[in-house]
C-alpha cells in the first residue's frame, strides 16, 4: 500500500507549526480587510474635513468698518451738483486714505507703493458701488435718450458716514491682523450667503437663486418622472403581455440605468433645446433632463414595491368583483406607495447632486435674480458649486464653494433621512 501522507505530518510539532502558520495567514487576510476599510474611512474623513474646514470659513465673512468722508472737493470738484458727474467718481479712493493713516503708510511716493497695493487688495469689488449708491442711484433708463435716470442716494456730500465694506483675501493679506487689532476689521456671519444670488464678487455671493432653481428643477423632475415611472411600473408588473415589445421595454430600462449622465445632457441639449425649441438654462429643461436619469430608478423601485404587496390583497379585491385595474388602483398601489415614494426620494436625491448634464443645457448661472417660475434661467446648487470653483477669488473658489456643498449635503441628508424613515416605518407595520 502506498503511503500518501507525508511522514512529517505525523510529527505533532510540525502540525502545530503548520496550524499556527495558517491561522496567521488568516489574521493577515483579516488585517487587509481592516486596512481597506481604513482607507475608505480616511478618504471620507479627508473629504469631510476639507468641506467643513473650508465651508465654515465661507459662512463667516470679514468686514472693514471705516468712517468715510464724502469729500465734495473730490467727488464734485466744480460744485456742479450734477449727479451724472458724481457718478463717475471712483468711490474706492475715499476708503484707502483712512486705512493708510491707520496703518502708518505714506499715501504718496514710491517707497510704500507695494504696501498700498496690499491695502487696496483688501477692499471688495462691490465697495465702490456700495458707496456710490449712497450718493447717487440709478433707477432706470430714459426710454428716448437711453440716458440713465439718477436720483440722490440720501447721503449728502460733506457728510461723514461709518460704512461696512466686504474685505477680500484676508487670509493671505499681511495687514489683516493689524487692522483687526485696531478695530477696523471684524468677522461676522455671512448673511448674504443665504439671501443673495450668485455673483462674481465673494462679498455678495449667495445661493438663494440656486436653492430656488434646484427646487424648481426637482419639482419638474418629479412631475415628469413620478407619474410616468409609476404607470410604467404598474404596466410592466401587472398588465403587460409577455411579448417582444415588453421585453424590448425592459431591456431599454435596464440600459438607461447605466447610460452615463453626460450622454443624457447631450441628448437633452439636442432634443429639448434644438429640436423642441425650449428655453435653455431653465429649470424646465433641467428638470426634464434629470427626469431621464430618475425614471429608471423610480420604475425599478416601484416594481419592487408592487411585487412585495401580498397577493391576498389583490385576490380579496378580485373576489369582491373588482376588475384587475380596480384592484390595482384601490388596493395594491396604495399599499405599495411607501416603497415607491422611498425610491422616488432616492432618485430625486441623486438628481439634486447631478451637475454634468445641466451644464450643456445652459444652466451655468450667468443669470442673476431669483427664478420665479420654472421658465426662468437659473443655476442649481450643484452647478453653483462648479461655477464658484471657476472663480478667480480664493474666497469664492475655496470657501464659498464648500459652503454651498454643506447646504447641498444637508439637503441630501434630509432627503435620504426621509427615505430611510419611510422605509423603517413601512417595515415596522
Amino acid at each position: 500500500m502506498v503511503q500518501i501522507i507525508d511522514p512529517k505530518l505525523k510529527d505533532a510539532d510540525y502540525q502545530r507549526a503548520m496550524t499556527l502558520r495558517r491561522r496567521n495567514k488568516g489574521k493577515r487576510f483579516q488585517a487587509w480587510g481592516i486596512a481597506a476599510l481604513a482607507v475608505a474611512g480616511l478618504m471620507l474623513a479627508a473629504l469631510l474635513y476639507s468641506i467643513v474646514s473650508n465651508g465654515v470659513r465661507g459662512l463667516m465673512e470679514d468686514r472693514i468698518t471705516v468712517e468715510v468722508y464724502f469729500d465734495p472737493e473730490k467727488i464734485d470738484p466744480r460744485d456742479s451738483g450734477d449727479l451724472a458727474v458724481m457718478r463717475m467718481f471712483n468711490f474706492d479712493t475715499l476708503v484707502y486714505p483712512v486705512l493708510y493713516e491707520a496703518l502708518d503708510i505714506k499715501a504718496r511716493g514710491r517707497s510704500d507703493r507695494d504696501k498700498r497695493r496690499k491695502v487696496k487688495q483688501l477692499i471688495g469689488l462691490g465697495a465702490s458701488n456700495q458707496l456710490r449708491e449712497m450718493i447717487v442711484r440709478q433707477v432706470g433708463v430714459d426710454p428716448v435718450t437711453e440716458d440713465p435716470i439718477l436720483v440722490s442716494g440720501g447721503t449728502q456730500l460733506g457728510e461723514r458716514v461709518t460704512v461696512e465694506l466686504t474685505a477680500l483675501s484676508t487670509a493671505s493679506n499681511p495687514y489683516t491682523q493689524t487692522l483687526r487689532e485696531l478695530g477696523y476689521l471684524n468677522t461676522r456671519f455671512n448673511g448674504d450667503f443665504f439671501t443673495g444670488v450668485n455673483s462674481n464678487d465673494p462679498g455678495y455671493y449667495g445661493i438663494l437663486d440656486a436653492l430656488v432653481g434646484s427646487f424648481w428643477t426637482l419639482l419638474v423632475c418629479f412631475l415628469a418622472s413620478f407619474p410616468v415611472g409609476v404607470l410604467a411600473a404598474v404596466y410592466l408588473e401587472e398588465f403587460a403581455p409577455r411579448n417582444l415589445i415588453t421585453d424590448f421595454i425592459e431591456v431599454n430600462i435596464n440600459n438607461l440605468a447605466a447610460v452615463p449622465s453626460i450622454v443624457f445632457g447631450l441628448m437633452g441639449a439636442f432634443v429639448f433645446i434644438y429640436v423642441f425649441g425650449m428655453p435653455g438654462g431653465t429649470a424646465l429643461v433641467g428638470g426634464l433632463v434629470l427626469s431621464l436619469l430618475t425614471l429608471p430608478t423610480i420604475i425599478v423601485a416601484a416594481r419592487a414595491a408592487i411585487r412585495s404587496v401580498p397577493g391576498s390583497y389583490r385576490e380579496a379585491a378580485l373576489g369582491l368583483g373588482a376588475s384587475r385595474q380596480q384592484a390595482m388602483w384601490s388596493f395594491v398601489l396604495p399599499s405599495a406607495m411607501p416603497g415607491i415614494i422611498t425610491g422616488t426620494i432616492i432618485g430625486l436625491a441623486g438628481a439634486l447632486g447631478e451637475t454634468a448634464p445641466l451644464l450643456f443645457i445652459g444652466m451655468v448661472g450667468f443669470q442673476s435674480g431669483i427664478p420665479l417660475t420654472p421658465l426662468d434661467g437659473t443655476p442649481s446648487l450643484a452647478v453653483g458649486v462648479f461655477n464658484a470653483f471657476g472663480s478667480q477669488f480664493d474666497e469664492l473658489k475655496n470657501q464659498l464653494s464648500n459652503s454651498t456643498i454643506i447646504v447641498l449635503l444637508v439637503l441630501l441628508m434630509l432627503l435620504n433621512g426621509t427615505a430611510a424613515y419611510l422605509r423603517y416605518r413601512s417595515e415596522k407595520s
Partner: protein
Amino acid sequence: MLLTLFLAVLLLVTLLGYFVGQRRALSAVRADQAKRSLSTNNYGLAALPGFYGQRLAYLVFIPPFLLLLLWWLFEPRLADLLIHWNLPDAVAEATRGEQVGIISAIREAASSQGGALSGDLAGGDYQAAVSALQALNWINSTGIYLLLAALLLVLLVLGIASSKPTFRARKAVENWNRWVMFAAAAVAILITVGIVMSLLFQALSFFQAYSWLDFLTGTRWSPGGAFQRGYGEEATGGVFGVVPLITGTLLIVVIAMSVAVPVGLMSAIYLGEYASNRVRAFAKPIMEILAGIPTVVYGLFAALTFTPWLSAGVDALNGLLNLPVLKSVTLLIANLFVALGNVVIWLGGTVSGSAPQLMAYFSEVRLETGSDIALAAGVVMGTMIIPFVASLSDDAIRAVPDSLRDGALGLGSTRSEMMRRVILPAALPGIAGGILLAVSRAIGETMIVVMAAGSFAYLTFNPLGSVSTFTVQINALLTGDLDFGGTKVQAAFAIGIFLFFITLALNTLALAIVRRFREEYD
C-alpha cells in the same frame, strides 16, 4: 395668450365632462327605473357612475391635449424646415454666416406686418419662404386653436351622446388606462431612440466633415479655441484624433480601479465575513455616505484639496530621493535608463518619437507635477467607486450557496482559506461583472475629471502628468454657445456616441457574465 385660455378651457371642459357624464348616466337610469318601476340590477348601469364621468373626461381631454403637445414640441422645427424647403438653391452655396443672416431676415419679415423683405433680399426668390412662414405663424397663433376647439366640441357631443346606461364605461376607461400605461412604459424606448438619434444625427454630420479614420487613429486632439475662427469661416481648423483621449481615459480609469477594486472587495469581504455588529454599524454608513456624495463634491475635493496634497507628497518624495544616501542610487538607476536609450539611438532607433540625438545624463532626479495630476483625479474617482464595487462584490459573495462555505469549513479550512480558495473563485464571475460595471461608470464619470484632470489632451501614461478624457472634452466642446451646425458641437456628439456604445457594451457584457454565473447554482 390663446394657449393659456385654451388650456383653461380644456381643463374646465374636462371637469365638466366628468360631472356631465356621471349625471347623464345616473339620470338616464333613474328615468328608466321610473318608467319601469323596477329596481333590479338588470336595468341599472353597466358600470359605476364615476366610470361614465371618467370616460367622458378622458375622451375630451386626451386627444386635444396630445395634439397641442405635439404641435408645441414640433412647431419650432417645422418653421426651420419650411424655410429650408422654400429657399432658392443658391443659398446652399452661401457660407454659414450668410445663411444664418438670410434666415433671420426671413423670420423678421414674416413676423412683421407687411411681410416684405427689405434690402438685398427684396425680390421674388425669398418671398416664398416668407409667405410659408407667415402661414405657419397664423396656424400657430390662431389656426391650431380653431382646430382644437372644433375637436373638443365634436368629442364632447360624441361623448355625451354615447353615455347610455348600457355603455360599458368601466371597460372603456380601463382601455384608455391601458394605453396610457403602455405609453408611460414606452417612454423608455422613446428616450433610447432619442439618445441614439440625436447622437447619430450630429455624429454623422461630423463624419461628413471629418474622416472617421482620422478620428479613430489620430494622435492629436486639438479642437481649437472657441474664438479662434470666425463664424462664417468653414470649420476645418480643429484636429480631432481620439487616441490621446482613449489613453487619458484609460490611465485615469486604471488608477481609479486600482484604488476601488482592492479597497471595495476587501471591505466587502471584511464586512460580510469578519466584522462584529459594532464595526458594521460604524462602517456601513461610511460606504453609504461615500455612495451618496455628489460627483461635483468629489471633483472640488480632487482639484482643490487632494491635488495640492499630492504635490506636497511628491515634493517630499523628491527630497527623499535626493538625500545624500539615496541620491547616488536613484541617479544610477535613472542614468541606466538613459544609457539604454542612448544605445538604442546609437543603433539607429528613436526614443518616444523624438529626433535621433543622444540624450543628456541626469545630474539630479526630480518627479515633476503640474497643476493637474492624473493620479489625483484617478484616486478620488476610485474613492467614489469604492462603495459601488463593495456592494456588487457583496452581492456576488452572498450568491455563493452556503453549502460551499459549510463544506470548506467542514473539511477543516480556516475562514480565510474558505474565503480565498472556495468562495472567491466561485464568486469571481459575479465580481468580474461588478468590476466591469464599475469601469463603465468610471468612463462615463464627468465632474471629477472636468475639475481635476487637464483640458489639454497629452498622449502620456505618466500618472503624475496631465491627461484629458472623453467627458472632459465633451464638456469643453459644449460649454458656452451651442451651435448645432458647428464642427465642435458635432465632435462632442461623436465622442458621445463613442462613449454611449462603450458603456453599453461593457454593461451588456457585465450582465451576461453575471447572469451566466447565476445559472450555475440555481
